[in-house]
């Protein structure tokens, strides 16, 4: 029995609370008490010799997989009264558990391709794999596809959900943050990148020598020779940067937060020297300060970090490895002080020695510990040489220790970043599925109501109606009765939702799975007519009866042709092509069949609605 169905009696009981305030009396229940539900039966499944048994209802939880639908009848063996599958029994265990618990697990020791083949055979989409195993599965899949040199990693994380942004500000902000959203954003991105590069190059080339200073000794740097050119270049770059900063400031949703962020401070520091320089006259007092300011222009290179995610991650790593870096610095400082002191006292008595004081010896220690060895300061005594040797050996150790920690931190954060992107894509897809399922379940109720209205209309107009129906799913009937009671209590009617088409590119050759329900009911009625033509020999007209207060107070006899309706609905679903689902999980992968949308932790409500 579908487990959520166990709570239907409770939900219906809780609905008693509506009775005192109901605007209309509640409709009678669709089933009389003496009608019994058909007993559930156990099915025997033989997979390559290993026998599995399960309730029929467990399998029918997912009606558009192989086991949950009529397709399993192809594998029924009359002689042994069991379903025989000539497939891998180990993997089948996981597939059966999916029906039982709603969670599809991926066994780590299995080969990815064989697992995917089994899933495809049994009609289960791989995006219902549970959260616990999903990452593993995704990682393996990525390795696989990379190995086959068939890179399926899409970068659609940014292309999802092109919401309608109402104002210019939001649009601008989004195009600043994600350059891939539109062409103009991309152009802006590259232009600013180009100007950053130009500005940095100009700063560098300014100092290259371009000739000899006239009348004086020394070379003339290019900056002074082509003063005007460089000034114009600098001005242009600063114009662009200022414009960019102001635009960002305008578009930012939270201006104070933006002004305090690192990138904006870098922007300000990059352009400030120019403006301050404009203000300062050629005064000797402040020209020293002016020169210092020009140093700050090199900060423009940090603007590249908006353009490179790796750089941002590096910065973030350094920030998060602050403790390891601190340890590194501290241990180095300790070692430097110790060795410098010893060196100083060892070399003190050498005449004309370089080791004039302990701080002077610091330089020697640093150069030795990092194994640079410039050779400007060299010990001359034997004791000094021994200490120098020990110093260089220990330097290697002290520096080598914290570095792997920092490297592993970097790698961890980098992978975490990727994982976060993967998880985001999966969550978006899952939310989309839940939305579709809700829409479809609501739509199913409304369509059922329409079908009942149609039948009643046919009855009223005197058409002969065939009393041909089979055992209806009583839980579905009772659930719909509950919703009708809610309608009666509040004097409102449920109508169809307009399921929005989310703008994703359609795959060639498949209809959009999120066709609006009006379209689906239209085709359903077409099929209804076709099916009913076969079974009932009549044609119905679907007349939408709204606001007929007397409608439901009549005795609602069991739905006729609901059986046919069910079949036509499932027909509608089968008519979608089933292609194996191998690409990555993101918003592009809307499953074709509306009912098969639930993954591991989504509820199995879909048992009601097919």
């Amino acid at each position, binding site marked *: 029995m579908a*487990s959520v169905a166990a709570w239907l*009696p409770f939900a219906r009981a809780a609905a008693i609370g509506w009775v*005192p*305030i*109901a605007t209309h009396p509640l409709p009678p*229940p669709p089933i009389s008490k003496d009608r019994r539900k058909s007993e559930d039966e156990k099915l025997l499944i033989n997979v390559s010799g290993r026998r599995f048994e399960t309730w029929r209802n467990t399998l029918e939880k997912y009606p558009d997989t192989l086991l949950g639908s009529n397709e399993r009848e192809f594998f029924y063996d009359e002689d042994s009264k069991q379903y025989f599958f000539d497939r891998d029994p180990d993997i089948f265990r996981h597939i059966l558990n999916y029906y039982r618990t709603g969670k599809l697990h991926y066994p780590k020791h299995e080969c990815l391709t064989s697992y995917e083949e089994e899933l495809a055979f049994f009609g289960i989409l791989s995006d219902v794999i549970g959260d616990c195993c999903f990452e593993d599965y995704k990682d393996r899949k990525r390795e696989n596809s990379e190995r086959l040199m068939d890179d399926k990693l899409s970068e659609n994380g940014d292309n999802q959900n092109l919401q309608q942004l109402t104002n210019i500000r939001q649009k601008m902000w989004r195009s600043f943050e994600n350059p891939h959203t539109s062409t103009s954003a991309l152009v802006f991105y590259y232009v600013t990148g180009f100007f950053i590069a130009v500005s940095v190059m100009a700063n560098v080339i300014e100092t290259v020598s371009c000739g000899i200073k006239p009348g004086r000794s020394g070379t003339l740097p290019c900056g002074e020779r082509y003063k005007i050119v460089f000034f114009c270049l600098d001005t242009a770059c600063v114009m662009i940067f200022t414009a960019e900063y102001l635009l960002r400031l305008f578009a930012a949703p939270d201006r104070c937060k933006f002004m305090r962020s690192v990138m904006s401070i870098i922007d300000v520091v990059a352009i400030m020297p120019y403006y301050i320089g404009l203000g300062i006259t050629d005064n000797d007092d402040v020209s020293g300060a002016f020169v210092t300011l020009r140093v700050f222009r090199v900060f423009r290179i940090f603007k590249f970090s908006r353009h490179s995610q790796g750089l941002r991650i590096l910065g973030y790593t350094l920030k998060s490895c602050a403790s390891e870096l601190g340890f590194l610095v501290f241990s180095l400082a300790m070692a430097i002080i110790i060795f410098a002191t010893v060196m100083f006292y060892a070399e003190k008595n050498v005449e004309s020695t370089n080791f004039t004081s302990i701080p002077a010896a610091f330089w020697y220690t640093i150069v030795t510990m990092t194994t640079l060895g410039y050779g400007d300061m060299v010990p001359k005594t034997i004791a000094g040489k021994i200490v120098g040797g020990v110093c260089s050996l220990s330097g290697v150790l002290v520096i080598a220790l914290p570095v792997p920690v920092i490297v592993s931190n970097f790698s961890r954060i980098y992978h975490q970043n990727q994982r976060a992107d993967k998880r985001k894509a999966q969550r978006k897809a899952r939310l989309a599925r839940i939305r579709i399922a809700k829409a479809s379940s609501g739509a199913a109720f409304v369509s059922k109501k329409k079908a009942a209205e149609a039948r009643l209309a046919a009855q009223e107009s005197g058409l002969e109606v065939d009393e041909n129906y089979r055992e209806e799913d009583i839980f579905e009937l009772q659930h719909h009765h509950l*919703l009708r009671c809610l309608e009666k209590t509040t004097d*409102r009617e449920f109508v169809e939702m307009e399921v929005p088409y989310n703008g994703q590119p359609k795959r060639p050759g498949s209809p959009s799975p999120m066709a609006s329900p009006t379209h689906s009911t239209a085709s359903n009625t077409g099929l209804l007519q076709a099916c009913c033509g076969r079974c009932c020999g009549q044609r119905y007209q679907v007349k939408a009866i709204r606001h007929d207060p007397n409608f439901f107070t009549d005795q609602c006899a069991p739905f006729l042709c609901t059986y046919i309706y069910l079949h036509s609905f499932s027909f509608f679903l089968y008519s979608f092509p089933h292609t194996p689902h191998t690409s990555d999980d993101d918003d592009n992968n809307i499953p074709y069949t509306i009912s098969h949308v639930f993954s591991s932790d989504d509820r199995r409500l879909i048992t009601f609605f097919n």
Partner: protein
Amino acid sequence: MDKINDLDLEDLNYQLPRRHRTEELAKLANSTKFTRKEIQLIYRGFKQECPTGLVDEDNFKAIFSQFFPQGDASQYAHYVFNTIKQGQNNGKIGFEDFLNILSRVSRGTVQEKLQWIFGLYDLNGDGLITQAEMLDVVNSIYDMLGRNTEPQVETTSAKEHVEKIFHQIDTNKDGVVTIEELVDWCLQDEKIVQSLEMLDTVL
């Protein structure tokens, strides 16, 4: 020696996690109005949804919300949850409580049902329903409809509804509804008594 004492102390403080044991099937069949087979069916589904045998409020809200896909049933579920006595399971309901309420409300006498309904509307448990309390509950009922209804649900719909009904139920016009007033109101309308019987479920 000291080490052993420390271990003992730790053992004393360590609480073994205890499994919640549900009542026996026979006892439940006797104390509620369901047959053995029905209880078996209900329990199997219950245990599948909640393997530990206890439902907490979030779980309950999630399960309840699935029956009303177009709207938001969490507030109504909250009020329903509060009517279920939790006993000793600190905020979670066990199968016995669940079955008890189910039996009383769907198969009980009219008096029991009305008692439960009164408990539902009386949010603070003081034995009186004020108009504000009724408004809260009716709001939660309207929330379950969602947006796709005809006519649309306005923010004032619930208020209007309550104002219409409250005056009719509150016969002595003292601004509060007592259990007797509610019972009288429900019993005097034949349709309401009939409606109370419409919500049993066939298993």
